[in-house]
């Protein structure tokens, strides 16, 4: 048999071979347990990647993939969104943000609507672009909205240091930076109420923190595996997790070893420590107040902290009582269980952040399932 195959089809063959194995093992485990296995994809990028690749549907008969608290915009508290959006109303001010925030609804508005009304809002790929913009427009107040997890925090730290080195007095960062491990601890504080059989851990948060940072999960008796994001990596992560479950082995595996080290990226963590300290407690959507789960700027960088330098005295409305984003991002419900899903809440007219964030579970279900 002529086995000359091009790179793409070789990859497809590999993916298919893996897929078959995932399905076979998934079926076997589901039969043993007499129910579907419930696995949590902690990372929002995973939620979207598994759904978009079709894996979520292909394994759906045996495995239920639930989202976790790993979409940074979805876990941002409504009050934080309202305070951030109120900055758009300031005189001679330019708001710079990653593109995913633009259409996310606060209590009364979105950045996109503020822009349409005349506020200056600019999207960037790297926070360093915001520093450059500030350097070139010294009469404009440039505020960078830094929403993210440990993956993003080092980039923000570097950005602040660069602004300081260039002695910019028209540049601020509004930090809404959270830590993933305390959120997982919060999910597990009352045991395992959602009946999780395993965790798919976030590949890029782990890149910074190291897979060791998640070893505390073992205490809960639930196995976990760090997974990457390409189709093959998604399947490898899932397969490795199913293998742990089959072997009844409670451990933190790593199926993304070409990127994630046990000890993580120390240089990145040192930079975080130089600029940030961990707050006593931070408010999350869906999870409430979690101790030691958010970064704030160290006092020595207070002059770059938009949270300290601008007064944002805003009113936050109650969130729509029918919106279950809080349940969705804690694995307690799937988007299909929401009465608003694809009825009153759609990507063009979202009620909650999970529908409109590019990493939101509701948006992923709407587009891909």
């Amino acid at each position, binding site marked *: 048999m002529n086995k000359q195959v091009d790179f793409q089809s070789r990859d497809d063959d590999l993916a298919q*071979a893996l897929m078959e194995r995932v399905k076979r093992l998934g079926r076997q485990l589901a039969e043993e347990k007499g129910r579907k296995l419930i696995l949590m994809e902690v990372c929002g990028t995973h939620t979207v990647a598994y759904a978009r690749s079709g894996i979520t549907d292909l394994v759906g008969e045996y495995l239920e993939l639930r989202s976790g608290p790993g979409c940074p915009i979805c876990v941002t508290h409504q009050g934080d969104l309202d305070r951030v959006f109120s900055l758009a109303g300031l005189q001679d001010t330019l708001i710079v943000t990653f593109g995913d925030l633009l259409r996310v609804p606060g209590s009364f508005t979105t950045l996109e609507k503020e822009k349409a009304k005349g506020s200056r809002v600019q999207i960037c790929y790297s926070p360093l672009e915001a520093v450059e913009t500030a350097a070139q427009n010294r009469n404009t107040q440039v505020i960078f909205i830094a929403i993210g997890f440990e*993956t*993003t925090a080092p980039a923000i730290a570097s950005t602040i240091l660069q602004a300081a080195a260039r002695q910019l007095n028209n540049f601020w960062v509004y930090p809404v930076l959270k830590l993933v491990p305390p959120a997982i601890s919060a999910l597990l504080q009352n045991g395992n109420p959602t009946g999780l059989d395993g965790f798919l851990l*976030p590949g*890029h948060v782990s*890149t910074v923190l190291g897979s060791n940072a998640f070893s505390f999960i073992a205490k809960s008796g639930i196995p976990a595996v760090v997974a990457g994001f390409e189709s093959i990596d998604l399947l490898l992560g899932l397969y490795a997790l199913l293998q742990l479950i089959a072997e009844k082995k409670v451990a933190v595996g790593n199926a993304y070893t070409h990127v*994630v080290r046990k000890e993580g*990226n120390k*240089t990145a963590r040192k930079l975080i420590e130089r600029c940030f300290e961990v707050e006593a407690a931070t408010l999350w959507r869906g999870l409430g107040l979690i101790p030691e789960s958010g970064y704030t700027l160290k006092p020595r960088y207070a002059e770059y902290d938009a949270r300290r330098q601008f007064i944002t005295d805003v009113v936050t409305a109650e969130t729509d009582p029918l919106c279950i984003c809080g349940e969705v991002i804690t694995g307690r419900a799937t988007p299909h269980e929401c009465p608003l899903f694809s009825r009153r809440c759609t990507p063009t007219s979202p009620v909650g952040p999970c529908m409109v964030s*590019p990493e939101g579970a509701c948006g992923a279900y709407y587009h891909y399932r």
Partner: protein
Amino acid sequence: MCLGIPMRLINIENNLMATAETMGVKRTISIQLVPNVKVGDDVLVHAGFAIEKIDPAEAAERITLLKTLLEERFDEQTG
């Protein structure tokens, strides 16, 4: 937004910045978080920052593992 893109370093400008490329797209990125990288290294890029060097030995091992899986499938089909 924890999206990461694997890119190859094609030029190191100084100890902070470099040019990286993937599929014909070139970008100036920060290499502050990955000391000791050199031209030709693959890195994972998030928000304009290389956040880790991709380990070529581990990447190769992953391919070997996958090939073993694929061959097993061939055996099952033909055997």
